[in-house]
């Protein structure tokens, strides 16, 4: 009888796992942030998983996007302020072409790494629905906050979450 119960529970657990794995693949809060490696404008290859232990703000942007241009200097300020506390901004240009990305990075004078998503594979991986999009990832590589779009004043929300994650 006990063995029978264990077999039934085993089957149900398997069924549950199968059910859960076939549901949607969209990134949500509490998911592990999908790992990737991209080349930066400086020519360095940077991998997301190598930032474990730090809070990461992953920002997706394009040079043609007005709100992205507004947001970048603000992200740079947050990056500079909290860098020594274990925080990093990684910005990903979704156009795949380094020329407009380099031009905007130079214009805004940002200090965080700008990564080029050649082939738009990472944008697909993170299923971007808006531009810009920001994903806050904690020290364990777990997605904790997703912000789509940008309006002046949104940086206050970023700051709130960044401070909370840094304190953890």
């Amino acid at each position, binding site marked *: 009888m006990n063995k029978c119960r*264990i077999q039934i*529970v*085993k089957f*149900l657990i*398997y*069924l549950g*796992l199968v059910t859960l794995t*076939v549901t949607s693949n969209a990134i949500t809060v509490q998911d592990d942030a999908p790992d990737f490696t991209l080349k930066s404008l400086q020519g360095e*290859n940077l*991998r997301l998983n190598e930032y474990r232990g730090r809070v990461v703000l992953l920002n997706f942007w394009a040079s043609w996007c007005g709100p992205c241009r507004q947001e970048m200097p603000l992200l740079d300020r947050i990056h500079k302020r909290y860098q020594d506390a274990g925080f990093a901004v990684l910005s990903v240009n979704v156009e795949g072409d380094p020329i407009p990305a380099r031009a905007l990075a130079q214009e805004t004078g940002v200090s965080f790494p700008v990564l080029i998503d050649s082939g738009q594979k990472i944008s697909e991986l993170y299923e971007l629905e808006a531009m810009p999009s920001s994903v806050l990832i904690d020290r364990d590589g777990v997605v904790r906050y997703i912000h789509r779009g940008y309006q002046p004043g949104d940086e206050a929300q970023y700051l709130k979450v960044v401070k909370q994650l840094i304190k953890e």
Partner: protein
Amino acid sequence: MLRIHLTVLYLILCCSLLDRPLHGEQLDTQMEEIKQSLIELKRDLLILEEELLYPASSQVAVYLSMNVGDFFNLDSVTLKLNGKEVSHYLYTELQIDALYRGGVQRLFIGNVKQGSNRISAFFIGKGPNGREYKRAATAEFEKNFEPTFVELKISDSTAKYQPDFVVSVSS
């Protein structure tokens, strides 16, 4: 809809099974048994997944290793199988260091048809004197019923003061 029904059924049955009162020791033993079964199930699923996704008759696995790189600083590797790109991997400094220390990377695992196949690897990096370097290495192999293993090896050729790129196939 089917997924929702299955999830609800699963939850209902789990609740009904856990509803019966159990003595403390009995419960602990059963919990341990369930955990053990779960571990075994996970292991079985992993092996089953590999066998289903990559059966030996069509499996090809590509591994990369690197000798001490005085003459070549690896940046990325692109792999093509029968003319189709199957992998493009960028290496960070930590990963390069791991390769120097003797690490072997499984760059790709996939399926190919039986018979004649062609594998090409394109290595991009910095060569002697910091020059941009792009080299290719190609191998043809016959796929049979056994899993096929391809080794990409980057080593220094002190005779030529150049890096050497070798592709070797074993089945």
